[in-house]
């Protein structure tokens, strides 16, 4: 089924090393739309990534650093990148640890422009 976000998510998931891309509601941590490779638990990623993004956003605001634009978590076996804008929606990408995060970041910022 094609949704208004399909093309954007396809283009994110096409990036080398990307395992999943999702649009997530930041406030309730639920999946709005997703493009997942086999084995990815979209609901889990959505809930945890949204929570992490929200925490970073609120903490940065409390620390008077301004609004968070891009977030990247690096772990031993994977990376999570997220961008959010003015709306409640956050775009999340789960990628391999070795994925080119520079490219993913650019694609995410491009996707955010489309979303807004």
């Amino acid at each position: 089924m094609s949704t208004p976000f399909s093309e954007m998510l396809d283009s994110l998931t096409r990036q080398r090393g990307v395992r999943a891309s999702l649009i997530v509601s930041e406030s309730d941590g639920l999946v709005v739309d997703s493009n997942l490779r086999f084995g990815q638990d979209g609901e889990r990623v959505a809930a945890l990534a949204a929570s992490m993004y929200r925490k970073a956003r609120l903490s940065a605001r409390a620390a008077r650093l301004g609004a968070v634009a891009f977030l990247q978590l690096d772990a031993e076996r994977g990376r999570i990148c997220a961008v959010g804008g003015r709306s409640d929606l956050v775009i999340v990408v789960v990628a391999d640890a070795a994925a080119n995060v520079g490219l993913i970041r650019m694609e995410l910022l491009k996707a955010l422009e489309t979303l807004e």
Partner: protein
Amino acid sequence: MNIAAVEAWVEAPLRRFVDDARARLALLLHPSGQVMAQAGFTREVDVMTACALAAASHATAGELGRRVDGKPFRGLHYAGPDKQLYMAAIETTRGAYVCLTVFDSASSLGLVRIYFDDLQRELSAAAPASEPVAAPALAVDFEADLNRNLAALFGREEPSVTKRPGGVPLS
């Protein structure tokens, strides 16, 4: 967070759930409204009331689901301005329970739901295979205690017997 459970096997999974989901309150109850475990409540009477209302709400939602969708709903979510509530059934080998959790902006519906799934799995794994064999709980001569407590409850020295038509035991 303060956690109390009627049966010990419930405690660890429930504790993990409230920690992981950053829940403010949690209740595990029988569908009839009897509490199995609670986390975060400070007054026992509040627990009982919450259980009664949760059981009612769960039963209502289940019945509504059966009527409009042919099967009970998976879960129930209410959102207030500050706090939210999520409630769903949990099936174990010991039977079905209802779990109600209250959370605020430190958590989210998505988080609560994923950890709910984990709780379901952990409770299923932890549940003893069979019912414990219960010994008689009360002594046979419990009546004296009961009479004394009821009299105290109603502010009477002795349980009084009134005359007809005002409360005479008929048999």
